[in-house]
């Protein structure tokens, strides 16, 4: 039992610090190194973009478009990083985005917003998203339904509900102030991108600097040990899904602002995009290890890829194939590195 530790004895003799390693394998194995790999991938993609599309790619407006597109799925992915690090999974994020977007843009909601303030729309979306996450969390933690199944059920139910509420029609947003606020820029940076940056920074701090983050790692790494150490694993699980639900609500607001519509078809396949971004970023699908920076790079890589393909008039189908290939290569590389360290 206790003896995969021949290593330890030998290290003791050599008096070499075990954690710090030198050389390429050490660099690639460290957190910074893993991100370095992602940076290299992103840079290669950008070079590809410049070579194939030239100025059309390396244009400020184009780059801001990439970031604006990345912002919505990015906010969802940051929330997803928490759930996956905590040992869970959520397949219902796209459906929650759709439901939140629809609920926040009904005639009734818009009416109230027109009479009071556009913030009502934001508030509604957050409440709907948070409530959906809460339901997921309670089902999983206290109802003991496997996360995969519970959120699969939510996926179906939330999108269905969105269709009922919207009557399958696209709801145009017509609230003064709302569009103006989210279309604005801060020092040349679109508000959507600023929101994404704030969520990512906040997520990083929450995951790496707080008791909440530490508990997330513990719960994902070994739920039984976490429970016996005195952590309320079930309550924490509920918080994780609620947090992701809130992120979906916020993403819905951003999507509504970008498209000026609410629709039951919003957020299609977001669950797959978010999970893919989280996983290629280096977060362990089995829980216990997660990185927000990696997730951000994962999102940027996928969004840039789409942009480069679109600029070259390549089909959505070709993009999907390339995405699949990237996921496989990233996971294979990670496994190699994990074995080496």
């Amino acid at each position, binding site marked *: *039992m206790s003896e995969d*530790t*021949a290593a330890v004895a030998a290290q003791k003799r050599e008096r070499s610090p075990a*954690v710090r*390693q030198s050389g390429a394998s050490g660099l690639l194995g460290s957190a910074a190194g893993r991100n370095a790999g992602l940076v290299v991938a992103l840079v290669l993609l950008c070079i590809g973009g410049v070579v194939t599309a030239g100025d059309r790619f390396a244009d400020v407006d184009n780059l801001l478009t990439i970031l604006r597109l990345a912002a919505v799925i990015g906010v969802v992915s940051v929330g997803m990083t928490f759930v996956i690090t905590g040992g869970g999974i959520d397949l219902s994020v796209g459906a929650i985005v759709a439901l939140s977007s629809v609920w926040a843009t009904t005639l009734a909601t818009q009416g109230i917003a027109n009479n009071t303030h556009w913030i009502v729309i934001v508030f509604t979306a957050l409440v709907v998203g948070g409530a959906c996450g809460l339901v997921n969390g309670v089902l999983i933690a206290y109802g003991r339904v496997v996360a995969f199944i519970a959120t699969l059920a939510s996926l179906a139910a939330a999108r269905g509900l969105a269709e009922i509420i919207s009557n399958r029609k696209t709801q145009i947003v017509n609230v003064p102030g709302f569009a103006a606020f989210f279309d604005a820029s801060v020092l040349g940076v679109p508000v959507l991108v600023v929101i994404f940056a704030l969520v990512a920074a906040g997520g990083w701090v929450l995951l790496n600097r707080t008791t909440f983050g*530490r508990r997330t790692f513990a719960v994902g*790494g*070994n739920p039984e040990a976490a429970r016996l150490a005195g952590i309320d694993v079930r309550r924490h699980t509920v918080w994780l899904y609620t947090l992701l639900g809130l992120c979906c609500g916020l993403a819905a607001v951003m999507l509504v602002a970008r498209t000026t519509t609410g629709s039951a078809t919003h957020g299609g396949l977001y669950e797959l995009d978010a999970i893919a971004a989280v996983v290629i970023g280096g977060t362990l699908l089995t829980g*216990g290890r997660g990185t927000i920076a990696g997730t951000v790079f994962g999102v940027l890589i996928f969004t840039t890829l789409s942009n480069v393909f679109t600029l070259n008039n390549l089909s959505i189908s070709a993009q999907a194939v390339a995405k699949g290939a990237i996921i496989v290569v990233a996971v294979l590389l990670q496994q190699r590195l994990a074995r080496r360290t």
Partner: protein
Amino acid sequence: MTAAALLSVRGLVKRFPGVTALQGVDFEVRAGEVHCLLGQNGAGKSTLIKVLSGAHRPDEGEISWRGEVVSFGNPTAAMRSGVAAIYQELDLVAGLSVADNVFLGHELSTAGFTRRAQQRRRTRALLDRLGHPDIAPDRDVGRLSVAHQQVVSMARALSLDGQLLIMDEPSAVLDPDEVRVLFGIIRELTAQGVAVVYISHRLAEIREIGDRVTVLKDGRTVATGLSARETKTSELIGLMTGRVLNNVFPQRKPVDPAAPEVLVVRGLADGDRFAGVDLTVHAGEVVGLAGLVGSGRSEILETVYGARKAAEGTVEVDGRKLRRGSVGAAVRAGLGLCPEERKSQGLLLDQAVYRNITVSSMSSFARFGFLDDRAERARSTKLTETLDVRPAGVDRVVRGLSGGNQQKVVLARWLLRECRVLLLDEPTRGVDVGARSEIYELIRELADSGVAVVVVSSDVEEVLGLSDRVLVVREGRVVHDGPADEIDESRVLDLVMEGHAA
């Protein structure tokens, strides 16, 4: 004793990135002998087994099997040659039948179709040979007891005409009577000419079952071919540790009769495994729970801790009643548990030492939810130095530490919390002799500082040596409660086994 060597190993070296796990292992095993491998955690025993059974390839040195130099590419190749290992974490597939497990990887088949009847027949014969006609080849392995699973593992090892069985701490998961049955099987196998390489931390077992002993230290053979029965204990321990140990158990101090009752358990029952348990522990007292695996002793401990919900009864700490079924409430009231399965229940294996230590005291390092990493590391470093956790370094991942050092990390967690009651379930399972006495001393020091300690152990000697008072648990009931120095090992065993003994 003149039999030719069945297996001989010369100059074996195995390197892993950054470390050399084996650096010169020599020993030989004769047909029909029980050859014991002794060594502390980290001495290289596990790596050696993996090399011998084909799971790892050696970097240097040679292995001769029946006089020929061999190189087993994988465990199946080794098994086909007659060398099979039985690991402590048994490698059986729950959900498959006994017969399917025995022939897993080398199914008897015709054109891709398994010959199930023949597999069943052969399994039946193997189980009979191992003295277990009571195990049905059709049963789901997952539903067998651990002892029976071990028998199935042995049947699997013998299914390809095994000539050498390597057993890694087989007794660690067994009760005393199950160990006796195991020894009976081993004796029968060796009488048939099968050789057994036997690994155990328990010297008494090695004396009973072993023929010769090889001692490993730091990946090297330091002595080989010693007589298992005649070599002195002090010599063996000296070889393993490089130092001499005498009295393993620390001196008890008489418990102050006026010491307050810290933990009071009354009429505790879980409605299933145990009932009517009363237990009082004073400050500074160590109370031992002796009993068989499955007697309910671990369940009692977990229920006191709130990890299992009590059906009846109360648990009080310092006079305050605990909420039932809430670990959080127990921890806040000052309870701490070192669980039986250290790896699966006690530790966050892939996280740093300091995070494992501070996990139960996070709020004391946090301000508005923000953690003070530096303070965490500083406090953890101090604790690991006090407990002599080796190798040092609180940023190390816990997985890489030996069993004894992992146990110290779990202990450090509760030291940090300054808990009032410490519950220890099998505190020295998988812990080598040297670290074991350090842990005993630590437990005694804790008690002397006023902590109330409850120890559960299968090792009767440990319960008696460590405790001030001993409770014997049989079939979910406390059948004896008295001072440790008024009862001896054979009396405890009598109480434990009553109604069990054949």
